[in-house]
């Protein structure tokens, strides 16, 4: 499964925009698990995923060449 990752804000400091090729990830729950294993710093953070530019609100199937964005909340002004 090929997935393109895009991250923002604080999260971009430890997850670069990159393409990964991993087996066994077929949905967004599995991807989240993978992310938090690879990048433990993410576990304690609030963030939201977007699959192909749509906010992920429930476990959603991922097809190959998907783009997943990882977005933290901003409060600054």
């Amino acid at each position, binding site marked *: 499964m090929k997935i393109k990752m*895009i991250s923002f804000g*604080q999260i971009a400091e430890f997850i670069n925009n990159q393409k990964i090729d991993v087996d066994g990830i077929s949905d967004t729950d599995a991807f989240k698990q993978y992310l938090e294993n690879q990048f433990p710093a993410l576990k304690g*953070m609030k963030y939201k995923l977007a699959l192909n530019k749509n906010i992920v609100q429930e476990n959603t199937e991922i097809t190959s060449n998907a783009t997943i964005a990882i*977005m933290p909340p*901003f409060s600054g*002004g």
Partner: protein
Amino acid sequence: MSAERYNRQIILKGFGEEAQQLLLRAKVLVIGAGGLGCPALQYLAAAGIGHIGIVDDDTISLSNLHRQILFTTTDIGKLKVEVAAKRLQEMNTQIGIIRHPIRLQKNNILDIISRYDYILDGTDNFESRYLINDACALLNKPLIFAAVSGFEGQLAIFNAPDYLPSTNYRDIFPIPPDKGEIPNCAENGVLGVLPGILGTMAAAETIKLIAGIGQPLSNQILNYNLLTQEQYTINVSHGGGYTLPKTVDEFLNMDYQDTSEGPQGYIEIDASELVKIQQLESVILIDVRERHELPVLDKQIFTQIPMSEFGAFMSKEFYQKHVVLICQHGIRSVAAAEALQEKYGDAKKIYSLKGGIVKWRDHFLRS
């Protein structure tokens, strides 16, 4: 109305006299007259928004001036709302500017935002942002949301009437981050032009929404990166797993962690109290800033444990009974104090230096 003042936008194809009339009839509330609020206010006033309310309880300080471009050096110490209102009124004498020199809280926000048609959130903290979001969702007020972090920004519109089903901020981030999880501008720094761009974009979205032109960012969140000039827009849909107050009573029972209401076990101290505590037996003074931050404090006196390493520190034990936490502005030190308080309860006395090194600079440069 002076047609000449707005001539250049009235003659614009797709805008015209009708759109101008919509702007002149609109009532917009801008919350926060800071880095985002200043540019937003300038363009909204210049474009002829008929009634503009400004909410801010803060005064102008020197470190505001690199991004809060309504203010000048001679304005330092004055109320932001007063200076902003005066400047905007001089800029456009034909509109009404309403001053609200207060901090919005549960008990006053509904009254104030109910007087306006559109709400622009240019605040700088999560407490205010969730408070404003929930109040706007409750009263069904369109909310233009802008925020910055580092070199990036976020922009969105919630509760827009013509874009049903409408979404709100909690559809993206159901609950606020913990204190200290996401650094703010005072802690993290910000290039002045970034809130300038986001604040201007927020004004543009407000004008588009009112005039009914283009595709406003309703039910979308735009991520903007200043360093790459890239934008990435994400569609927002309804989520679950959060509590949105459905009635005024429910709203008043929500916990927005207003500073006046927050439970505290640790004590916030000033520099003179710091000097007294330093004389006590069994004291550790902890500087929680990252290693690159200036000024560098005397390592003989202050133990450096950056927030990025604080988790590891928390897993160990130390013998001192009095713990003083210090950072640049007294925000991260509060987060560290809360964590230690939770771990140790009454077993240790925890202190956080209010206002941080910046506020007591003279003290630290002397010692």
